[in-house]
């Protein structure tokens, strides 16, 4: 594959001037890659989950306008109990087979890792007494959550990534403890990005409500069978999306423990909390590109880009905590 032939290096900006250019909620159902039929994936699909795939298409278009050097992913499918682990091997190439849906996802990946940034995050975490460990085993197989999110956000794989594991604090202790850890990790990530000089895109790789169907259709992409598992999950998902669209991210994060408990949500992994804290709890709205279900789970594709990073018109938008928007013309 092409990306292995060219060494990808992050475009370094001035050290100490790094920044987070945007954060994305980028769910990782392998079904989306399956339905895209990329050459890296062995199984072939007829179609499927178009609303989410088109949402990713829309988000990719917006992200292409934001210059960035590296993608930082927090993946729920690299689950660690002893601290947070950080991928720190320069090049990883192998076959990823989904343990739940091997019939849909057998993906040949070829990934470049920004080891320097990974080490910086590790160092900052150590300074802050957050337990972290670098993953340096070249035989390590990258988790499918990382690969699905990485592919759907950047199918060309032409930028290096950094991957953070999901520390299972929620299972180990409780959701409040998870929130606390992810806030610390978010702050550390922000500091590390600034120190590194990178322009980073953060990716929280997870769905919202996460109650799966326990059976699969004979034709997995039969969209006549796709729906949310139950209505209460849908209502919760809509509540969270409403807060995203209203720019009320702090309130959204405060709801995470209840939301997660009520919907078995993958926010349990901490990705959204980590990302929102690293972005200082945006008071500007997320751009919600689309919502759809995958075997009953609720998935939203959305991104937050600080207004100063976007090349929109010269309108300065002021967002209140109630989500209403007023417009002021710049002088």
């Amino acid at each position, binding site marked *: 594959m092409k990306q292995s032939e060219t060494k990808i290096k992050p475009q370094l900006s001035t050290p100490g001037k790094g920044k987070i250019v945007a954060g994305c909620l980028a769910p990782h159902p392998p079904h989306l890659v399956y339905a895209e039929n990329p050459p890296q994936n062995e199984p072939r699909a007829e179609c499927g989950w178009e609303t989410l795939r088109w949402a990713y298409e829309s988000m990719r278009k917006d992200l292409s306008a934001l210059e960035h050097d590296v993608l930082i992913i927090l993946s729920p499918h690299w689950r660690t109990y*002893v*601290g947070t682990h950080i991928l720190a091997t320069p090049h990883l190439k192998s076959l990823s*087979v989904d*343990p739940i849906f*091997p019939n849909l996802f057998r993906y040949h990946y070829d990934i470049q890792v920004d080891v320097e940034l990974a080490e910086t995050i590790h160092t900052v975490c150590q300074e802050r007494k957050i337990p972290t460990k670098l993953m340096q*085993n070249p035989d390590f197989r990258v*988790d499918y959550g990382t690969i699905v999110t990485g592919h759907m956000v950047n199918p060309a794989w032409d930028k290096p990534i950094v991957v953070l594991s999901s520390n299972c604090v929620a*299972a180990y202790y409780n959701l409040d403890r998870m929130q606390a850890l992810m806030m610390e990790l978010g702050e550390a990530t922000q500091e590390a990005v600034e120190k590194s000089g990178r322009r980073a895109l953060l990716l929280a790789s997870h769905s919202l409500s996460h109650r*799966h169907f*326990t059976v699969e259709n004979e034709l997995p992409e039969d969209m006549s069978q796709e729906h949310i598992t139950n209505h209460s999950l849908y209502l919760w998902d809509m509540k969270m999306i409403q807060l995203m669209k209203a720019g009320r991210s702090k309130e959204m994060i405060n709801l995470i423990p209840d939301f997660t408990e009520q919907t078995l949500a993958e926010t349990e992994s901490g990705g959204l909390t980590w990302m929102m804290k690293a972005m200082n709890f945006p008071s500007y709205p997320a751009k919600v590109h689309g919502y759809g279900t995958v075997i009953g789970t609720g998935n939203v594709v959305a991104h937050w880009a600080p207004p100063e990073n976007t090349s929109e018109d010269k309108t300065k938008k002021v967002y209140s905590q109630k989500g209403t928007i007023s417009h002021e013309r710049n002088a």
Partner: protein
Amino acid sequence: MSVTLKSQTSHSSHPIIQGFVLPGLVHPLLCPEANPGYQKVRSAFEKVKEDIERSSADLILIYSTMWPSILGHQIQANPEPEWTLVDEEFHDLGSIPYKLKIDADFAQAYNRHAQERGLHSRTIAYHGFPIDSGSIVALKLINPQNRIPAVIVSSNIYSDRAETVVLAKAAVSALKEQGKKAIAVIISTLSNRLHSTWVPPEEDKIHSLKDNEWNLKILEFLTKGRLEDVAQLSRQIQREARVKKVTNFKPFWWLSSIMGSHNRYQGQVYEYQPICGTGCAVIGLTPAPRAARDLEFDEDAPEFYTGERNVLSASTESIAEFSSQNNDDNNAFTHSFSQESDSPESHTDPEESFCENK
């Protein structure tokens, strides 16, 4: 002490000739020298290997708590899976190249019997499928030359007792159909609370006193052969000594059910040590003519799985059959439960009726 199998197994036609509880952490395989306790667990695996080599088993049948599934249960059916595994948590301890021998024919039969009993299941045979580290560690240590083929079945994260018990019975049906004798293995720690920071191997210990006390209680029961009693305690163990990653603590439901749902065993604790804070025990259970103690068990052992009862549904249609306000539907209620629950007497294998309680 090694257990001689033939004398006991000759008493019964049950296809499971011995059961084992094995921990799945990679340390005994990759770094036994790091802690004397790890070495002891490694040595215990060696004893299990010797026991299995002396047995007449045709198959090693593994239920792994480290292989989670969502779409029902998955059964490994790739005849020769080959890969190099790196543990997602303990990647710094090294890589584990492996090549296994799987009884694909039995996997297909197991799958068919599971489906006939109302379970959702499927076989898995893909190159590169991520076989869980617990199964790899166990097979590398107890069956290093692949002398006996294995089959591995997943642990469904949503399933509870009924599905797990029926899953085990499906395995028994498949074994009887194929005329095979098997060693049953569950891959599971007792308490599963890891240290949440890096603790030097030489300072390893069970994470908490409470975890240790529960582990010792489980070991006390199993030493006396009280496997079904431990299975009946699973919900309590889940509350007291487990990090709740899944719905419930299921491995002992599977092991007890596949071995006959009773307490008539000779139990042997080969070793019990902490590994990274968890309680890691190597335990063997061999069918015995008498039980140390047999109680009237609280929970039944269904033969078939009749599905979720959709208790969360808002639909009045779906709950109508359970309504006590509808006389016609009371029969449906009774019928539904009678399908799932047999009388305790029906669980007794007639061929084992000679085994009287003390």
